[in-house]
């Protein structure tokens, strides 16, 4: 091993032999466990079906329904009582019309926004999407937006939650 090699090809072959003699370090048992736990409980990673989740499938499909239910509930709780009959006291306590929250608009009532918080809960690579003209990487994000409103007259607080899921298409530029 002390003599310099006069034949470049020989020294490359010798180097290849030296490299082949090295054995990659072992993977840890912890890594194996983590991987196979992830396969057994596929919660977070890329879903089997790529592309945009169709409406009506998965939790995203519930978003329109949840939003509609929230608006309906607010309408029932906050709308004024009928003038004829019913509990007059209740009507007096809740005089404001339901705020139009679904559109992100406070409406004409006395409801005041207290807080608005948007939290990104998940960012994941969602595979490749190939269109006729281009190829894109799909990045799926899930966020939860919470808006809180208060009626200053009686202190009633309403919190509205908007779950969102977005697919971002990032063009793949060939190297």
């Amino acid at each position: 091993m002390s003599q310099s090699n006069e034949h470049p090809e020989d020294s490359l072959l010798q180097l290849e032999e030296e490299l082949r003699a090295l054995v990659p370090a072992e993977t840890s048992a912890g890594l194996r466990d983590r991987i196979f736990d992830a396969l057994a409980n596929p919660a977070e990673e890329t879903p089997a079906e790529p592309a945009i989740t169709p409406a009506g499938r998965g939790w995203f499909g519930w978003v329109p329904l949840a939003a509609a239910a929230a608006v309906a509930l607010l309408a029932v709780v906050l709308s004024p009582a009928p003038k004829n009959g019913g509990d007059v006291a209740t009507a007096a306590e809740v005089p404001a019309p339901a705020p139009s929250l679904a559109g992100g608009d406070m409406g004409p009532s006395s409801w005041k926004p207290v807080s608005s918080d948007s939290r990104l809960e998940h960012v994941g690579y969602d595979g490749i999407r190939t269109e006729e003209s281009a190829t894109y990487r799909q990045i799926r994000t899930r966020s939860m937006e919470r808006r809180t409103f208060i009626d200053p007259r009686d202190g009633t607080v309403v919190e509205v939650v908007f779950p969102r899921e977005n697919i971002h298409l990032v063009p793949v530029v060939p190297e």
Partner: protein
Amino acid sequence: MNPSTETSSAHLAWQTWFQENGNKLLLFARQMTRSAADAEDVLQNAIVRCWNARKNRNGGVDPENAPDPAEIYTMIRRAAIDLGRRETRRARREEKVIDFEEAKGIDWFQCPFEAKEKSTEISGALRKLPDAQREVLTLKIWSQLTFQEIGETLGISENTAASRYRYALEALRRILGKGKESHFKNLAVVL
């Protein structure tokens, strides 16, 4: 076969496959990441993606359908690129990690005590190679892929893969031959 039985069999088959291939997959992931922890995350992510891509309509996975080499290495590479993009803010901190690994002589290979110095020297030299050369070298030597498979994995031609391999070996020979205390001085070429 019902989906759960099918999936259990697939789990066993994939565990065997991982037992045989995990070391070299992790070595490849380590070439493309800044720390051992990142490499493990990337490998896990790639395997889960392959698994999910194989799920049938019932959620089962065919036990016979383990990842082929070009596919899994491509997945690892993509996962590493994605991680790199996400983690740019951590880059400075991670650079310190790789410096720390190098300074501590952490190498990427298992070796008997008497070969430790050689192994550490090669690990250090590999870190100095350009990324494009190092990934071809790793896939050729330790993953034992053909140049065609390497080309498919990296999205380059077979000839480019072969050239990069040659350049990588030559660069490695230069790096290893330079050190005064090198175990590989004999590889230095007399011109």
